[in-house]
């Protein structure tokens, strides 16, 4: 499976989780952290969150909105949505391949 954002290195997975979190609407940093933690059961540290956010913003996959108090919401851009779709399709195909090799039939 070809990684879509290979230059993100160890921030590729957190970036994917952030894109998924933003796919249902804009969120600020703390909301993204709690959303990711609820979805995966694993905490997303603030250092990792902002390292990934900076990369995503630089690549035009997310954009910052006007801050409310000190909280700044982020939203998914069209580029980010296309990239996320592509990554999820890739993961889905990879998962189907793995299940098929294991002999597990899909429900």
């Amino acid at each position, binding site marked *: 499976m070809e990684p879509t954002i290979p230059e993100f290195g160890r921030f590729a997975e957190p970036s994917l989780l952030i894109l998924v979190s933003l796919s249902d609407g804009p969120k600020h940093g703390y909301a993204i952290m709690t959303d990711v933690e609820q979805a995966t059961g694993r905490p997303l*540290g603030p*250092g*990792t969150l902002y390292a990934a*956010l*900076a990369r995503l913003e630089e690549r035009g996959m997310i954009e910052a909105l006007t*801050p409310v*108090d000190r909280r*700044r919401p982020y939203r998914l851009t069209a580029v980010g949505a296309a990239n996320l779709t592509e990554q999820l399709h890739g993961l889905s195909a990879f998962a189907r391949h793995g299940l098929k090799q294991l002999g597990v039939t899909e429900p």
Partner: protein
Amino acid sequence: MRTLLIRCYPAAWRERYGDEFASILDERPLGPFDVADILLGALDARLRLRDRRADVIEGKGFSMSLRIGGIAAILGAVSLATAWFLGSGLFAVADTFAGFLLLLGLGLLLVAVAGLTGFQARTDPVASWAAFALLAVGTIIAMVAFVGAATLGGDGYWNLGTLGLLIAIFGTLLFAIVTYQTAALSRGAALLLAAGSVLPFAAMVSNLMILTVAALVCFLLGWFLLGVQAIRLDRPATDPRPA
């Protein structure tokens, strides 16, 4: 503690993300995992900032190299072409002026080769700098010999000048091959330069004047086109004006 952790990030990062980052840290108690994560994040931000600065400096260096090389190639080609016309005997101009233009043109081509090699060497450093070394040594020998011949006279200087030109021609051929292979600059101009390097030998063997003229035209046109393309490459790819 929170302020200290935020201070670990570079100032440029703090200016952009500092406020919202501080608000996140205020919303939850910090555990050892968070502290380690923030310290790693600060290290990452510093490394990224350093890499970006290095990229900017490197980019400026290549841009400057390309611009200087391009301008020098155009001026060098024009200067040599003018020297050629003036030295042809068709115009009533003193030989010293044509000689001055010849030296000026060779000097400018030397600068052009240095600038363009600095740009091309990113792809193939060994061949690029070898071509530059041959061209530089040959051109300097030829320049010194021409000055010696003009001021002191004697066949020795002319022979030395011929040797210098031969070395410079081999250097030009290698430079043309490198330019064609790396494709960093115009391949068409590289072919013209290659033709300008090979045709003098064909002219010597066949004793045909037309081949000498063709060699000079190819040589000068090749440098001129390389210069034009180098300057075009140096311009930003997109229109910087806001929509």
